[in-house]
């Protein structure tokens, strides 16, 4: 076991050296990048890595590399000119656009995939739809009982991801209106644990990526969400997330400096192609085309 561990460490080391070696291999003569760097969102890591791998198979000679660090890190990198493409699971803030303008950079946005978060409850719970505000109030602890939102008299068990998860912050921003989670919210170490807990407890509520929620069909019930009291309730689905009618969803986007050209454009076109969008589906996100 030990030697195997050592070997894998060595392989990892060798691979990282190879990566560094690749960095210096920029083709200065042709004026076009044969080495594309992408930096940003950890949420998109798996997706972008899969794209890079598949793209590399059919386009030998063009290396695409991805480094994570979070959306903020990626945006900072493109502002500093240290990356070709920034991957971000949130839109750029006004402050960042202003910074870009000051530096003479025009950020060009391209939405490459979408990510929907489904709110799930136990199938025995009679509640089928809620407004964002109602869900937010449950999560902040203001509504401790299901009877307030049209359910039976039963205390709510709040389930959330750990605070280190990007989904935790996203849900906090969009649904909780940036308020704090209730102290009694149970922070589960994994999405699967949330699904498991919701199946066990009639009063539980949780949020998971749409892919997970659909995979657990029958064991959990997906809540239809109203953006506010006057709009119709929308069930999260590939279609409603694509249209943008489902509110607890976010775009996953690439930012480039100006209109992409050459190999960068080639890569972006690949991401939006049917082959690229198939990978989006395979990695559990929602296609944009």
């Amino acid at each position, binding site marked *: 076991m030990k030697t195997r561990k050592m070997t894998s460490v060595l392989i990892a080391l060798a691979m990282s050296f190879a990566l560094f070696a690749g960095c210096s291999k920029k083709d200065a003569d042709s004026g076009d990048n044969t080495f594309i760097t992408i930096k940003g969102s950890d949420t998109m890591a798996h997706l972008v890595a899969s794209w890079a791998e598949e793209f590399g198979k059919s386009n030998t000679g063009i290396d695409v590399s991805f480094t994570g660090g979070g959306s903020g890190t990626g945006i900072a990198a493109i502002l500093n000119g240290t990356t070709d493409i920034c991957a971000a699971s949130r839109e750029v803030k006004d402050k960042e656009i202003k910074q870009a303008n000051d530096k003479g950079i025009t950020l060009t946005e391209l939405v490459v995939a979408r990510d929907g978060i489904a709110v799930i409850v136990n199938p025995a719970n009679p509640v089928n739809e809620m407004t964002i505000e109602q869900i937010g109030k449950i999560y902040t602890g203001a509504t401790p009982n299901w009877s307030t939102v049209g359910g039976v008299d039963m205390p709510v068990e709040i389930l959330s991801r750990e605070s280190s998860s990007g989904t935790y912050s996203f849900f906090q921003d969009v649904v909780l209106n940036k308020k704090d989670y209730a102290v009694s919210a149970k922070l589960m170490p994994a999405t699967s644990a949330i699904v498991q807990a919701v199946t066990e*407890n009639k009063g539980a509520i949780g949020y998971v990526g749409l892919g997970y929620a659909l995979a657990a069909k029958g064991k959990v019930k997906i809540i239809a969400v109203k953006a506010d009291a006057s709009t119709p309730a929308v069930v999260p689905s590939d279609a409603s997330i694509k249209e943008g009618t489902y509110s607890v969803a976010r775009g996953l986007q690439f930012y480039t400096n100006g209109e992409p050209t050459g190999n960068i454009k080639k890569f972006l076109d690949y991401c939006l192609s049917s082959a690229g969008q198939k990978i989006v589906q395979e990695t559990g996100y929602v296609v944009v085309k």
Partner: protein
Amino acid sequence: MQNWRKILFKEKAVKYTLAAAASMSILIVLLIFTFLGKEAFGFLYEPGLKELFHTRWMPVSSQRESFGLVPLICGSLLVTTMATIIMIPFGVGASVYIAELAKPRERETLKPFIEILACIPSVVIGFFGLLIIVPMVKKVFGLQSGYNALSGAILLALMAIPTVISISEDAIRSVPKDYKSASLALGASKMQTVWRVIVPAALPGIITAVMLGIGRVIGETMAVMMVTGNSALITGNPTESVRTMTATIAAEMGEVPFGSTHYKALFCVGIVLLIATFILNLIAFKILKKYRMIG
């Protein structure tokens, strides 16, 4: 003559190498203390030691980030106390049975199983807890949810019991035979001998065993993170969800920005945890030392 010198030199070399190997652990302990301290030190300036006494642990917030250790310490304390209460009767009972009452055949069957239980990885025990203990606790106590301190305590007791059994069994076995013979000769029954003579004589060893078991319980992370629900509540109620210090470090360390207040706060949690286990081990060591002197 020359040969002798060579051997002498070799002996010395071996001796110092072994001494170096033995003192490595001291060095490592000191290094751990130093580096934990170094990373946590910045917390004293910003936001200051007072923040650690806050009653809320809310490290990711748009309102106000709080890094109060009170709920975490409370969580660890509750789970550990409950686990100890469960662990003592099972651990001590089993060790008395194996050391004094079991036939050799029974002992030979029991011991390997106890040893297997001792070496099951904690993640696997966590799975067991998630699928069996959590629903069971929910059902037996008629609760809304089984993700609570009690589930964690049962799992942790399960993990610590083998440690308690093997050490207290050793202690019981090392009680001199004369005690037993004398007691039986005076007309005491077997049970009277076991509970009134042998167990009291082995008590310091049993206490040490329990202490080491508690040490294991406090430091355990994975299993407890999977079943306690991890809400940072200040509560003494075992049917409520709690967040232990270990689970907090494990869950949050991976994504925390390097050098941030949150990062430093997690190192403070580490220091508190280290001090707690340090004190426990010190007490266990003291008792063990005294016990050897009597025994």
